[in-house]
């Protein structure tokens, strides 16, 4: 069965909106830092209200909030995409190998996945951050290591189902090698699940990174939406929260919302029953 993602995307308004939002945000985070000035530069003009020189005013160190927002968005998207790629790759490797090889290897991998699934990610991250400095790259790696099991379990299930399909039997009958079957038939057929897994991991990463940064567990020098909110929250008793705390919160919500819309579309593609709902 061939499913056209493009056709489905055309029909699904919320998915189109999600794609548009994420595209705009990526574009904004890529272009804006080039003309928004140095986000690190201090000035004695602290807590300036939004104006012509500083679109979103300045923070407690006199830094331009708009510039920091653009850089922060870039970091958050980087973490999101980074985790999406790494965690999904691990999910694919573990899920496909487990389902395809089977036997004792499958049992061991599944028990490892079970162990990971019962561990609360945020607690593990807090504990690990005591020993490992939570810079952007380490955060990407740590979150990836905690996000992969869910996708791996789904991919394994789908691999087991695919293994029993007629065209795989036929390929075997004609003497196809295991690697050929794997790369020619199974992995391509997992395409939609991989995308769903990517979106799910990316969404979780944004949320986890922002959550960690908001509670103060991140590098002081990293600029992300979470760290901006963390710093702004200390002054929520002043009106500055309107242009300091609120914008990163809105951007964060937009990222999560767009990933959710796209995720919903992909889930509908995998499970056609959702289309009728």
């Amino acid at each position, binding site marked *: 069965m061939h499913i056209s993602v493009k056709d489905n995307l055309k029909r699904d308004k919320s998915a189109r909106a999600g794609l548009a939002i994420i595209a705009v945000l990526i574009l904004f985070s890529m272009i804006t830092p080039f003309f928004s000035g140095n986000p690190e530069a201090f000035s*004695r003009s602290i807590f300036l209200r939004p104006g012509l020189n500083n679109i979103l005013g300045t923070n*407690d160190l*006199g830094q331009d909030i708009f510039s920091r927002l653009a850089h922060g968005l870039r970091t958050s998207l980087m973490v999101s995409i980074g985790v999406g790629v790494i965690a999904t790759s691990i999910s694919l490797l573990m899920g496909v190998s487990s389902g395809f090889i089977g036997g004792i290897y499958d049992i061991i991998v599944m028990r490892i996945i079970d162990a990971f699934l019962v561990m609360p990610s945020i607690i593990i991250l807090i504990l690990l951050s005591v020993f490992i*400095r939570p810079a952007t790259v380490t955060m990407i790696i740590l979150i990836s290591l905690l996000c992969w099991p869910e996708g791996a379990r789904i991919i394994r299930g789908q691999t087991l189902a695919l293994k029993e399909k007629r065209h795989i039997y036929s390929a075997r009958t004609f003497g196809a090698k295991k690697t050929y079957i794997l790369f020619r038939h199974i992995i391509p057929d997992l395409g939609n699940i991989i995308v769903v897994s990517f979106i799910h991991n990316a969404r979780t990463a944004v949320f986890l990174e922002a959550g960690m940064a908001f509670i103060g567990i991140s590098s*002081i*020098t990293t600029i992300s939406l979470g760290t901006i909110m963390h710093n702004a929250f200390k002054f929520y*008793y002043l009106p500055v929260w309107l242009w300091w705390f609120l914008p990163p919160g809105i951007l964060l919500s937009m990222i999560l919302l767009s990933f959710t819309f796209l995720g919903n579309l992909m889930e509908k593609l995998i499970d056609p029953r959702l289309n009728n709902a």
Partner: protein
Amino acid sequence: MKKTFVLLLTFILTIFCISCSAAGTGETADIVRIGDSTGDWGFPSPYGMYSRGPGYIRMSLIFDTLIWKDKEGNVIPMLAESYDYDEEGNTYTFKLREDIKWHDGEPFDASDVIFTFNYIKEHPWVWVDPGSIKSVTQDGSYVVKIALNKKYAPFLNNIAGTLPIIPEHIWKNIREPLSYTGDDALTGTGPFILKDYNNSEGSYLYEANPGYYYGRVNIEKLVFVKVSGETTPAMLESGEIDAGSIPADVAEDLKDKGFIMEEEPPVWAAKLIINHHSNDLLKEKSFRHALAYAIDRKQIVEISQRGFAVEGSAGLMPPANSLWYNENIPQYEYSIEKTRQLIEDLGWTEGEGGYYSKDGDMLSLELAVSQGDFERDGQIVKENLEKAGIKIDLVSYESKTLDNMIENWNFDLAISGHGGLGGDPESLNSVVIDGGFNSVRYYENEELVGLMQAQLEEMDTMLRKEMVYEIQEMYAEELPSITLYYPKWFWAHNEKANIFYTEGGISTGIPIPINKIAFLEK
């Protein structure tokens, strides 16, 4: 007739209700709740408390000292109703009150005082060094004579007014005081009795000691709850707490809303702690000078402290301690040129990215700050030092972890701070040559160490002042740490919590407005 009767009855009932409600409010506020951003300051026994000012304050509500301080910083009697100093024999004589009972009903007398002084010799208590005490003897049940083996100027403030007296009948059996948390560990003579302590929630519940000898406690319960500094204004306004330290930015606003403001004299020092002990580069005095020139303290005060601080003095003593502050100390005015010159004199050359390097190694240092407290200062110091060619790796740690790292010299540079500089200048000794994480433990200059010890023995205030002035000059020259600023802190409270700052600080100079005598009837 019936109508008159009803009217009369209504009138009588109204008068009765009014008088009842007046009696209900009386002189005693039911509960006073104080917000604190850290929460847990340890088990409030003399040995269980966390060794910082708030820990001492919580302990001082339960345990009394021989003497205490009033709002103006004057010595007032407490366990001792009077004292006398015999200069010739170098002996203090304390006449104890005879009407004092421990919380468990046992009578208090001179043997408890003698026991306490002997106990801290056997089990050192970090706040008091018994080294200056020759002997402690009793003359009858209520007279204690404390003979000193050398002159010790801050005796009244730092020993008699700091050492909590513990009950002999309980502590004589305690061999491990640091870990002892039995029910009787909190038996004191103080105005409050601890009813509940929750270290995970950082809460303390005290109840008034009904038989307090010094005066009636005018509240029934005193509660410390963990509240972040940012939420304190909102909680004060909603009436959930009665007092708390507030962000300086909202002081005026809360004042307008009817809250009483207590402005703390800026005597708490935020410092750049330098590892002059195990880092070879930082052992170099001229490199420490280079660091001082590179840091724009004015910028830190204006930006990170938003003007609510006083610039740090190189001599450590804050200007607010007007009796002992030496204003003629040369300060290290911000100058990148001087920094660069001093670094280059040490053989470093400017390399890649504008950072100095020597023998292929980049001039790079780690700057540790505690989470939340000094992150913004750290960012400015990092920027200042990097502008001067020193690469800085800024890292934040949980505050008690950082204290531990500092104590074990496991850092390069760190931003931390301490209070105690508003009182007797012995505080300089405790943060320069004594042990503990609050001290820079600097012994390289023997003259400085000698002078610091000698000032304690000088009983003439004017002569002592000259010595303290000289200590500040030498400290500024040696520069084992760089004082960044002295923050101005504000406490807001309603009329229920009648708290106040103590001139010169509580005990050895704690700048917290919770003096236990504030809770006593005047």
